[in-house]
């Protein structure tokens, strides 16, 4: 995916130059950070809930096959059809075939990052099927022809002023005013007609409940219910790591998911979908299909990125990431942005294409601190750096530089000599106490001054002092 994108540094530079983008990022992540902090402060059991959430995920990951088979049995018993997809291509093919079998002209879709991961929007377009995104933010980016820039707020890169422009140009009739409430009403009116006319509704799943065979969606807009209930066919696409043993476990994870994502205590809508419409049911789909997607997950299970399978897709890591808050989601270039995306994108798109992502991190550790399931994200990013170094994907100049530095650093006497020469040479570039421009250090001096070394190293001065003492 995304082979035509310019290199990461260019994407980042373009994002940094976009001040409207920065305004949009600051508004959303700033609010998210404050609300999460308040929600955690108001929930004294948060640490205990987090430990429990982590234990649930670790248990499921260690027994993934067992619970997946249990889920398949129970989902099948409820009347749903379970499909298995090894990779994104197979998942796309299954969903597209199900839509074509249903003779679908229009499908509604409620927000699902897994759907983005497997490239479903493009696949549906290629099959000549009209796709209607029903999540408000997904509706916005569909109108704009964009991809999500955040896993919780896909349109967070757009300010409300930009959304007003978009709706004025796209909605017929256009919204009467550009306050958020009027714009939401306008989207609701446009989308409501589509909800009722769709042949197939496609949703993701926040949880797959093994002991009931139900899938669970959580939203704040109710669009998932309107996507999954009126159409004749409901298709669920979900990653295999979404499995939980029981409904109680799903609720335990929901407590930390919602607080970490939006700072709410609970989502407005939490729906368990268990099989198609049964005789006597007032509504519901006639057919229900669940597509379980691996796409690299079992490979992660067996390797050093196993802990990443705990991720419940709350987005807290990106809301608290200094890099994400400067460049936004699109600059990352993958389906999943921010710290969790920097771990996942090399899995999905290959390390050679994504080697910048694990490197473009200050290793400050804030993502791991706020992660509701305790994923050691910096450790996992370092594992990618290690692999990138081993596979010689890092630039030659860096490899040579580190290699030379290491040769000197092994030899304290040589290092002493080199630093004595180095600090004296550095002084030559400065005036007063500062160096404003330095060859080979343009990355530093383009933006900041470098303090001029004092001229003699600590070790030189210390040895002199020691001699004086004797």
């Amino acid at each position, binding site marked *: 995916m995304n082979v035509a994108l310019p290199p990461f*540094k260019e994407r*980042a*530079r373009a994002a*940094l130059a976009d001040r409207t983008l920065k305004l949009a990022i600051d508004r959303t992540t700033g609010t998210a950070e404050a609300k999460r902090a308040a929600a955690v402060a108001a929930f004294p059991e948060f640490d205990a809930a987090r430990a429990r959430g982590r234990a649930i995920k670790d248990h499921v990951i260690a027994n993934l096959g067992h619970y997946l088979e249990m889920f398949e049995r129970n989902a099948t018993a409820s009347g749903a059809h379970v499909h298995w997809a090894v990779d994104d291509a197979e998942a796309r093919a299954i969903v597209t075939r199900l839509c074509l079998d249903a003779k679908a002209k229009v499908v509604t879709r409620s927000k699902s990052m897994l759907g983005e991961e497997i490239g479903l929007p493009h696949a549906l377009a290629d099959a000549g099927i009209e796709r209607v995104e029903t999540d408000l933010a997904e509706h916005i980016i569909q109108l704009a022809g964009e991809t999500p820039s955040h896993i919780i707020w896909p349109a967070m890169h757009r300010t409300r002023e930009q959304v007003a422009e978009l709706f004025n140009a796209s909605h017929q009739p256009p919204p009467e005013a550009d306050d958020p409430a009027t714009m939401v009403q306008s989207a609701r009116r446009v989308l409501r007609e589509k909800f009722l006319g769709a042949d197939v509704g496609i949703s993701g799943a926040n949880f797959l409940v093994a002991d009931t065979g139900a899938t669970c969606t959580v939203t704040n807009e109710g669009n998932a219910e309107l996507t999954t209930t009126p159409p004749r066919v409901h298709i669920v696409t979900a990653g295999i790591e979404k499995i939980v043993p029981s409904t109680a476990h799903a609720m335990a994870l929901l407590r930390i998911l919602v607080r970490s994502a939006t700072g709410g205590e609970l989502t407005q809508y939490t729906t368990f979908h268990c099989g198609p419409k049964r005789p006597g049911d007032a509504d519901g789909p006639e057919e229900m299909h669940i597509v379980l997607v691996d796409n690299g997950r079992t490979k992660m299970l067996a390797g050093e990125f196993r802990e990443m399978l705990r991720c419940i897709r709350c987005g807290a890591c990106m809301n608290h990431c*200094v*890099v994400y808050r*400067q*460049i936004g989601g699109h600059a990352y270039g993958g389906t999943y942005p921010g710290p969790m995306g920097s771990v996942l994108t090399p899995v999905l798109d290959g390390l050679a294409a994504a080697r910048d992502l694990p*490197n*473009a*991190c*200050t*290793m*400050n*550790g*804030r993502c*791991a*601190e706020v992660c509701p399931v305790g994923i050691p994200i910096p450790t996992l990013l*370092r594992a*990618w*750096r*290690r*692999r*990138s*170094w081993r596979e010689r994907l*890092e630039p030659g100049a*860096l490899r040579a530089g*580190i*290699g030379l*530095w*290491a040769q000197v*650093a*092994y030899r*304290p*006497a040589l*290092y*002493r000599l080199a*630093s004595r020469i*180095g*600090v004296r040479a550095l002084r030559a570039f400065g005036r*007063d*106490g*500062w160096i404003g421009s330095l060859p080979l*250090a343009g*990355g*530093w001096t*383009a*933006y*900041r*001054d*470098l*303090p001029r*070394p*004092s001229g*003699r*190293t*600590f*070790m030189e*001065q*210390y040895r002199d002092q020691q001699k004086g003492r004797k």
Partner: protein
Amino acid sequence: MSGQPQPTVGLFVTCLVDAIRPQIGFAAIQLLEEAGCRVEVPEAQTCCGQPAFNSGDDRDTARLARQTIAAFEGFDHVVLPSGSCAATMVHGWPELLAGDPDWAARAKAFAAKTHEITSFLVDVLGYAPSGRRLAASATYHDSCSGLRELGVAAQPRALLAHVEALEMRGLPGNDVCCGFGGTFCVKYSDISNAIVTEKAEAIEGTGADLLLAGDLGCLMNMAGKLHRRGAKTRCFHAIEVLAGRADGPAIGEEA
């Protein structure tokens, strides 16, 4: 300390202090001696290896780690004026050498006696400076590795509270990264610049005379940005203030 043998401390000054600001090393020696330690500075020290470690070059990092452990493991304690370098030794090295039968236990034992200096002074020695005075306002930035990997937060503040006439002002976003990140700041300099610009704005917003922190790398990044912006904030390592050595030139000033 009467009756008790004097604890021996091997001081690892760090490569940046050695090259850029030696007086932080002398402040460290002074404080450790005041707190009753016998301080030595072994010759066989260069760098904790972070440039290699953070670039994924484990082989070179491990070689440096083994050499440094061998040179320092005879001391009762190993102390550094940096949370970042200390965290590499405390967490990074044992992780790196875990699979090495000859070194795994030594790395663990070494990690257990390695400390960032302000936490060592407070948590291990129960030290508090006396007779220090500095009539200035100051704000404090929490460097990330020390804060999150070693729990350094209360200790420097507790020590600074003993400095008479020093007015501490809260820094909004005090626990948010300054954008240094070691090699990150030169590899991804555009992003780093955007981050440190926000940090500089927050520091200037406090109106404090001084910016204090516990890591020279972060301090150089913030001081360099503040100076480029024409800000008047003066930057010191916290232990320079604690040792009564903040009456001279700040980072980037010359006598």
